[in-house]
C-alpha cells in the first residue's frame, strides 16, 4: 500500500507532513494532482498545493478527494518541513505554471517564491519536488526520467489552457521553448516522496512501478463506498 484513505485513516494521523494525491478532471481528461498536507503541533492538518497558474491554495484537505502518505523522512526533518511548508500560503498568487522551474525557486528563509523569467514556473508536482530540493532534499533523479510522447500531449494541453485562462503572451511564448521537457507526473512525485529518504534521489526505475500502484489505489478509492 502506497496511499492512505482519510475515510479510514484520518488526516489527524499525519505526523507533521505528508504528500497528497487526488484525481482531477481537466478539460475532459482525467488526471492527478498532488501537494503537501502539513500539521503544526495539534493544529488541524492543511493542504498546500499549486492549483494552477498563479493559484496556490492553503486549505483544509478533502476527505473525499485527497489520499495521503507520510514523507519518507525521519521525524526531525518532517517537523522542520511542516513548519517551513506552513509559510507557503503567502504565495497564493505568486507562482506561474511552467514546465521548467528555472532553478531554486523559494527564498529559504521565508518560503516566498522568487519570480522566474517568463515561461518558467512550476506544476503541482514540481511544486512538491521544488520545495524539497530548495531545502536540500533531492527527491528524484531527473536524469533518469524519460521523455514521453504522452507528456508532450499534456504539455500542449496545458499551453492551450494557459492561453484560455489569460496567461500573458510573454509567458505563452516562452513556455513553448520548454515543450518536450521531461515531466514529473503527480503520481510519480507522490510515490517518490513516500520512498525512504535514505534512497533519495529516487530514480525513475524505482518510482515508476510505485506510481502505477498509486494510480491503482486512486481507482480503488474512487470505487470504494463512502
Amino acid at each position, binding site marked *: 500500500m502506497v496511499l492512505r484513505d482519510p475515510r479510514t485513516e484520518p488526516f489527524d494521523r499525519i505526523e*507533521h507532513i505528508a504528500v497528497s494525491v487526488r484525481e482531477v478532471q481537466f478539460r475532459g481528461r482525467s488526471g492527478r494532482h498532488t501537494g503537501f498536507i502539513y*500539521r*503544526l*503541533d495539534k493544529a488541524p492538518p492543511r493542504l498546500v498545493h499549486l492549483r494552477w497558474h498563479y493559484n496556490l491554495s492553503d486549505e483544509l484537505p478533502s476527505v473525499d478527494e485527497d489520499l495521503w502518505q507520510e514523507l519518507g523522512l*525521519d*521525524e*526531525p*526533518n518532517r*517537523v*522542520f518541513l*511542516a*513548519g*517551513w511548508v*506552513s*509559510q507557503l500560503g503567502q504565495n497564493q498568487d505568486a507562482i506561474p505554471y511552467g514546465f521548467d522551474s528555472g532553478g*531554486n525557486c523559494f*527564498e*529559504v*528563509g*521565508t518560503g516566498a517564491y522568487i519570480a522566474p523569467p517568463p515561461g518558467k514556473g512550476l506544476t503541482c508536482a514540481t511544486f512538491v519536488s521544488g520545495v524539497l530540493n*530548495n*531545502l*536540500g*532534499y*533531492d527527491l528524484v533523479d531527473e536524469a533518469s526520467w524519460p521523455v514521453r510522447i504522452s507528456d508532450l500531449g499534456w504539455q500542449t494541453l496545458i499551453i492551450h489552457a494557459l492561453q484560455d485562462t489569460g496567461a500573458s503572451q510573454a509567458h505563452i511564448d516562452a513556455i513553448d521553448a520548454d515543450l518536450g521537457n521531461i515531466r514529473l507526473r503527480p503520481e510519480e512525485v507522490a510515490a517518490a516522496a513516500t520512498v525512504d*529518504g*535514505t534512497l*533519495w534521489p529516487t530514480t525513475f526505475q524505482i518510482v515508476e512501478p510505485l506510481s502505477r500502484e498509486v494510480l491503482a489505489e486512486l481507482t480503488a478509492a474512487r470505487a470504494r463506498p463512502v
Partner: protein
Amino acid sequence: MTRSDRSQSIRPDLAIPGSTDWVEVKVSGAPQAVMPWGAPLEDNVVVVRAGRLYNFIQMIPTNPTGANTLVMQLGGPYSDKASSTSNVQIITWPGVPGSTAQWSSQLLANAGQPEAKKAPVPNSLPQLTPFFELGLGNQQRSSSEELVSCIGALNALLKRGSFDVIDTVLRSVPLDRMSPELIVTFARVTFAVRRHLRAWGQFVLDARSALSQKGLNPAVVLKGLA
C-alpha cells in the same frame, strides 16, 4: 574550547560588559512559565522576567555588520526538563557603540527582582530594536511553532545579509542542548547561503557530532547537506 566546555564553565562573577565571557546571572523568585524575556521591548521598555536561573549569558559585542548578539541559556531546574519551555534565547539588535555594555548592565540590574518587571531603558541607551529573538527548544523536542519562529528569525538575518551575525549564531548555539529538529532547521535554512558563511562547515560537523550523541544517524538527518 568546545561548545560543551564553554557551556559548563560558568563563572560565578558577573559580566564583563561587552566581553564574550560566560557569566552567571541568578534571578530569584517564583518560576514563570514564559520566555525568559517576554516581549523584550515595548516602547523603549525592557521587560525582564524574574524567576529564572540562567546558566550563561554570552555577550557578543558589536561586530562589523553593526549587530550585537546576546545568547542566554536558561539553566537550573529547567534545563533538564523535557517540556516545550524554551531554554535558550538569542537576541540580536543593531549595534550602536556602547549599547552592548548598557544592555548588559540593564540586564544585570534586573537580576534578583522577585517578579516580572518593566525597567525603563536609561536615557543614554539608544532605542534597541532587536530583529532576532529566538526561543530555542529544549534538547528533547521542539514544537513546530518554535521552528517557525526560528525560521522567521533566521530569515530576518538573511534578508539583511547579516552573514557575520549568522556566523556568530552558528558558532554560539549549544548544539548539545538543542532538539534534533532545531538542529535540522538551522542547517537547512542556512544551507542555501552556506557559501557566505565561514562557520557553516564547522557547524555541520558539530551538528553531526551532536546528532550522533543523541542516538541519531547524522548522515540520514542531514542528508543532502554535504
